[in-house]
């Protein structure tokens, strides 16, 4: 942890030395992209994206100065979770891996490699000022959407009844995981541009809901109901944070309900999941098998657990023991106390993430931090809620802990951004000024 903190802090002076610039709102030239809005709202100024800066090298850089290291508590929490995840993936998967691949370390090795790669991604994204990364919003989103489209139209690699993966050699990419973070980046980018106009239906609400809707439909096409729900939730969370009218959000939610019902009722396996969720032990030998096994795992763990490596449920009884239902194995091996510690770690992550949102120098940073934090938190607690039988099975992994390269890498990228936002900054001229003015103004 300390090492990483040092790394971040050591990065600061170098960057600071090069990048110390102060710019005023008046110095900034409005971007072409914002020209229409600027004409209506002359006082609004936006930070030029890095891409724009690149095309206009002469233009002064207006990023706030980084004055401190990233949140060490946050990075420590995440690294702890990832390391814990490696241990638990090994414990939960060894039997299955041995049976399926002839090597008990199959998932351990892969997850370890992904973890190292993930930490690298995290360090890189934390090091480069997120304002500069802002220019990559659309390329990132479009790439993610393209990948998602590829899986949605049927080039995906089928596994577990759904085509959610794209095979690139030995690597399976899961676009749905990537698109979640891409959506957060895009929403943060877009919402921070809209500022007060977020309250309007056509400018503030509709584009984002439509954008999210397209992505959700692509997700559902795979089908990946869990990711679709997650994207919907994140969109609403971020719209709500940005101050979109509650009426619109609730209205959209109301509109979505029949669609959800149609989707669930129209899909046999989702209906089965619902019935299994409602009475797992009644359908213990059919649809409720997985959830019943999960509940038994938790119960078998008791207060203090059976000890790491001693789970019996992982003896092929609990399906997806190393992915979606890894928390059941954690509950069994480490007991209620271990489970509680893990929940606490996730809560700590949420708290530190929101702290970063509060201390962010501009709205973009705030939205980014809120989006990422709530995404990770929601995904984590949804997964846990599924495992303990509070929610129907969705196919969502537990961030940082479940086995899965795409998810781990993307989550590390997201945390990298979060850590980036958490770094203290001063003289955030453009953003801060814009924000102050925005906050001060009345829409």
């Amino acid at each position, binding site marked *: 942890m300390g090492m990483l903190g040092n790394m971040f802090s050591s990065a600061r002076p170098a960057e600071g030395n090069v990048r110390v610039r102060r710019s005023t709102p008046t110095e900034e030239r409005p971007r072409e992209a914002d020209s229409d809005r600027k004409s209506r709202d002359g006082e609004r100024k936006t930070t030029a994206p890095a891409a724009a800066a690149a095309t206009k090298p002469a233009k002064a850089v207006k990023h706030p100065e980084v004055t401190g290291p990233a949140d060490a508590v946050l990075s420590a929490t995440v690294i702890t979770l990832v390391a814990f995840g490696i241990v638990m993936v090994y414990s939960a998967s060894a*039997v299955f891996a041995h049976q399926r691949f002839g090597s008990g370390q199959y998932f351990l090795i892969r997850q370890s490699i992904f973890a190292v790669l993930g930490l690298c991604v995290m360090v890189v994204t934390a090091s480069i000022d997120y304002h500069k990364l802002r220019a990559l919003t659309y390329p990132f989103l479009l790439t993610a959407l393209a990948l998602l489209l590829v899986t949605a139209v049927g080039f995906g690699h089928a596994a577990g009844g759904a085509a959610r993966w794209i095979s690139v050699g030995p690597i399976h990419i899961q676009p749905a995981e990537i698109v979640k973070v891409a959506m957060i980046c895009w929403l943060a980018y877009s919402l921070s541009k809209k500022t*007060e106009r977020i309250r309007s239906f056509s400018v503030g609400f509709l584009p984002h809901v439509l954008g999210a809707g397209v992505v959700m439909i692509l997700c559902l096409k795979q089908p990946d109901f869990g990711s679709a729900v997650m994207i919907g939730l994140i969109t609403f*969370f971020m719209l*709500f*944070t*940005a*101050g979109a009218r509650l009426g619109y959000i609730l209205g959209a939610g109301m509109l979505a309900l029949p669609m959800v019902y149609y989707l669930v009722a129209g899909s046999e396996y989702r209906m089965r999941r619902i019935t299994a969720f409602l009475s797992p032990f009644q359908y213990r030998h059919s649809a409720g098998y997985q959830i019943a096994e999960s*509940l*038994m*795992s*938790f*119960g*078998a*763990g*008791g*207060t203090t657990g059976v000890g790491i490596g001693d789970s*019996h*449920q992982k*003896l*092929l*009884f609990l399906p997806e023991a190393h992915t979606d239902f890894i928390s059941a194995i954690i*509950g069994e091996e480490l*007991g*209620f106390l271990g*489970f*509680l510690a893990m*929940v606490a770690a*996730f*809560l700590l992550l*949420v*708290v530190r993430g*929101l702290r970063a*949102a*509060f*201390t*962010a*120098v*501009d*709205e973009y940073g*705030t939205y980014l931090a*809120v989006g990422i934090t*709530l995404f990770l*938190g*929601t995904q984590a*607690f*949804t997964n*846990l*809620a599924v495992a*303990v*039988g*509070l929610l129907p099975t969705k196919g969502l992994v537990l961030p940082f802990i479940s086995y899965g390269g795409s998810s781990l890498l993307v989550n590390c990228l997201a945390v990298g951004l979060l850590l980036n936002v958490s770094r203290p900054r001063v003289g*955030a001229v453009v953003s*801060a000024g814009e*924000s*102050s003015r*925005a*906050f*001060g*103004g009345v829409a």
Partner: protein
Amino acid sequence: MNAPASRRGLFMRARIVMLATLLGCGAGAVVYRAWDLQVRRADTLRGMAEEQYLRDVALAPKRGTIYDRDGAELAVSVDADSVWGNPLAIKKAGQDARAIASHLAPLLGLDVEVLAQRLSSERHFVWVKRRVTPAQGKAVRALHLPGIAISEEARRFYPNRELAAHVLGFANVDGVGIEGLELALEDKLRGPRHTIPAVLDRRGEIVFSQQLLDERNAQGDEVTLTIDKTLQYLAERELELAVRTSEARAGSLVLIEPSSGEILAMANYPTFNPNEPNRSSNTDRRNRAITDRFEPGSTIKPFTVSGALAAGAVSPTQIIDCENGAVRVAEYTIHDSHHFQLLTPAQVLAVSSNIGAAKIGLALGRAGLYRAFTRFGLGERTGVELPGETAGILRHYKRWYDMDAATIAFGQGVSVTALQLAMGLGAIANKGRLMQPQIIKRIVDGHGEVVQAATPHVRRQVIPENVARLVSDMLVAVTEPGGTAVEAAIPGYLVAGKTGTAQKADYVHGGYADNKWMSSFVGYAPAQAPRLLAAVVLDEPMIAHQGGSVAAPVFRRVMGAALRHLGVPGDNAGALAEQAAPRKGDASKSVAAAVVAQALTAAAPSEPSLAAGEVLVPSVLGQSARQAISALHQAELDVRVQGTGLVSAQEPAAASVAQRGAQVSLRLSPPSADGSLPASTAKATTPAAAAATTSEAAPTLPQPARELIAVARPGGHDG
């Protein structure tokens, strides 16, 4: 948001806090639920989980081996490949069951259609063929057919095929005893079917057990029989030969050691191969020696005579009028095959007079005869540890018809098994003690602990010892010239026995069939110190039917070879007289001597004796005990034998002069591996050398150096 004072910033923070609170509520719900599952309902859920992974796994113990008395394997369990298939896996893999069947069927000798149908069923498991040969198993493995697998199963194997098949019985394909000792000792052979708690994975495979597996606990008991493989083989071979040559329907032979009741051989013909029990019929698999009862006829007469002598109803010297071959009892007439006038009880046995036996039976009375027979074990099971034993039929005397007391006395109207007959006569051979038959010598569990060991068990003292000796002496006359079973005589040994030739009951027409006979002989040797007793029963021999001519030769061949195999030293009639002589003064024993003398004079004319005085001691070095004794008897010398095997030393040495009737000591040693005589042979010419030989030869004896001493004198009936 560095301007917290701004309203927008405040509202945004408030909204973020609201969302965070929502998330916190979610976390709270998850934690509460986890508490509910892991603390409150932990026991219930843990129980459910344990139910699916904790199993008491039944260990499949290795079925115990059955050995003969010398440790030769008679029934063993070996691992064999069993081929099975998973039809659903075949279907899932998109494989054609028919194609797989066409590969497998010719290899395993199965029908393609049947196999294809079986492999197309909606199951996860079907046997293709169980217990295939190692070659077939290898071939199937080499094919690597999808959905076809091989697992190892224990297979019961009888390495000697038909040998002792009826005694051993057989175990089925699942290793469960179906007949014979395999059935009777099922619990012990199978081994403790205890279970151990083990953790299973979802496929039901044992991941680990919480208890160390002790191989010895998964081991059935090892059973050692009293059966002697060599004698059993001998008995079966001779019995089969006799059944075939006499064109009999079936036959049984029981060879026992009368002093202990141990069964050394129990043969039946027809027989079967227990490795392929399904290829034989039920009748072939019957252990006739204990399951089939028959009217014994004359072989029962020793019991009648014993009973009458013991009860004092007849005296040994009493003269019985045999009415010249026909006598009326009630409204029936009893015939003798030969016509006799006046006979002593000994002669009644020797010539097997029905009339004489009937009169002795009548003298004994109904109750006395019934009691005598029951005391000999008739009408009750012998208690041998073999399944399916029948008790025979001996009706209570109150339900006898008028004639029964007469006919039952000579073996009509009563039925017995071969084993009963053998055990009954064994009582006469064994000083009047009826022994419990033993088939199991020892049972040892997996830890090497002896759980059961045969100890001779006397069921009862049937008749006083002196009566037994008396009747035994009478029975010797049967096998001597003039008796009915000269065919049973074995050179070098005194044989006591009794023939039986019984008409079979005709169940269709009533009465007795004219042309169906049960021919039997039961006897033992050496008569003075009985080592072996055999009962031979032949069912419906066609070529001849007299027990003396059909069954007695079987007895002679089996008993002679068995005595030689066991190295039993012979005895002779002279010894008999000598032993009887000092007993004068004792009333019954003097009677015995007189009877024996009478029997002997009646049986055999005395041979011309050699010249009195000195005789030349012949060389008997390298000869078997029997040959040596025979040669020395010819030279009218006494013999003292020590050890087993071939003569390795003699004292006095060959060609020396000895007094007639002097004792010659023989030292016997087992032949060395290359068949040559023991090295000491040549040296053993002086007393000192003989003594030296004795001292150095003794440790090399493989068996406990038991002293076999036979006192023999020249007699009239030597080989």
